[in-house]
């Protein structure tokens, strides 16, 4: 079994102004999916990322600079990532088709985890 990272981006203001009940209804769908994937033996963990501006550290070869991430200018931010186990990309895609992220947002990026 190979591991695949599901990266879950959303619009920066996706959850702003949402009532607690609405927000809870959304994340319950995610919890339920993770429960199901765990029961199916394909879930291998994940992390939610905080919804702050983050930091970008750059170097021009001489000097290291730190910036706030330019959130207002980007169309999406990474909300979190999940790791699943699947035989290949086709299988990973099949597992992802039922992901609630596609219902509540619009895109999942799948990348295989490099393992030797």
């Amino acid at each position, binding site marked *: 079994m190979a591991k695949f990272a599901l990266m879950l981006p959303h619009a920066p203001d996706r959850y702003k102004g949402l009532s607690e009940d609405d927000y809870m209804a959304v994340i*319950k769908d995610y919890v339920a999916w993770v429960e199901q994937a765990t029961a199916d033996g394909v879930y291998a963990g994940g992390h*939610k990322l905080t919804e702050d501006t983050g930091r970008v550290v750059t170097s021009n070869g001489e000097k290291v600079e730190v910036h706030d991430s330019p959130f207002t200018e980007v169309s999406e931010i990474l909300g979190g990532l999940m790791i699943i186990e699947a035989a290949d990309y086709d299988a990973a895609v099949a597992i992802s088709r039922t992901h609630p992220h596609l219902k509540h947002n619009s895109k999942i990026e799948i990348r295989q985890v490099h393992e030797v």
Partner: protein
Amino acid sequence: MSGEDIRQQLDRLSRRERGRLIAGLVNRLGHQHLELAEDVAQEAMLAALSTWQYQGTPDNPAAWLTRVAHNKAIDRLRHEARNQRLDEGVDIGAAPEPEPERIADPELRLIFLCSNTALEGVDRLALTLRVVSGFTAREIANAFLAPETAVAQRLSRARHKLQRLPGPEASPPSIFEIERHLPAALKVIYLMFSLGYAPRSGEQLVRRDVALEAQRLARELADTQHTNTADAQALAALLCFQVSRLNARESESGLPVLLRNQDRSAWDRSAVDAGMHYLQAARAADSPSRYHLEAGIASLYASAPSWEQIDWDAILMLYEKLEALAQSPVVQINASVARAFAGQAEAALRQLDALADEPLLTHYAPFHLARAEVLRLLGQEDRARQQFQAAIESGSSAPVLQHLQQRCLFHH
């Protein structure tokens, strides 16, 4: 298990845990902190789900939630104390010393708090659904068929009224006063069940959960020392009998199935058995309550081997007592149907005709259906068809139905 099942389980877990957290916090902090307890429980649920969203549900979600809620409550109280320049060192500490003469279980104490007669009847029901049973304002609005904002306002008013009650008026009843406090609590549970069981439009799953939750609370009272009065047993019996038919009374396409057409093998036998057990225990009553009579009727339906073998005379006898006790047109409608099946169809029709002037019944589908049934028994097929038509036309008027139900239930 399907994703939908998991989602439903998660909803139920969230509600149960929210109710449990609020009960524990109110128990420690006092009823004047009800709102804080609700806020903290909500925050803890939100924190929990945000984490579980990526890491999966922990083995012991209850312990996780209790710890988070406890910490959040301490933070809130310290913050408030600082704002009021009170001493530091706020601690919500251990649960209060148990008082042997008072109801001890936090959840039961909360049921009594929410059914406090200082509140209006509808507010008691809404607040119990919210605080004891953990339903969200949206879910309650769904069950009430009311706008969510109206429900939220109602809840907020009721909560503030309760919080301002002086301690003695809001404290849980002593075991010597149970008989005085229990009727209001039982009525809230009875109404909760009616709300969930009524075959109306709206969010079906939520309604089903409301009905099951009412059954759970009734059994809780019936199973606990001091609250296990004959009336509590009778209510638990009634709700068990009704729950036993939850699956059979709805077709696969979601349409109601009449009792005579129900697949009896789909009845939940364990619920019927539990109902019989509670009914047995309820016999200690001095005089039968409404719950006794309704449970008795339900038990006769449940114990008949087939529709043809239903003991209509026994059912009618109980209905006649219920009519005298309840004075409600809804009861009269049901009684008239039993009367007709017990061989007194003409008397039943006279009774229904006499109700025809009741303006609220004009749009009450069960009234027209009952009339249609009785007319059909009398062979008056043309008039029966008219009544079926009237029933269909009034079928969508859920608000009228609700109004009628509340009117009948709150003033008997």
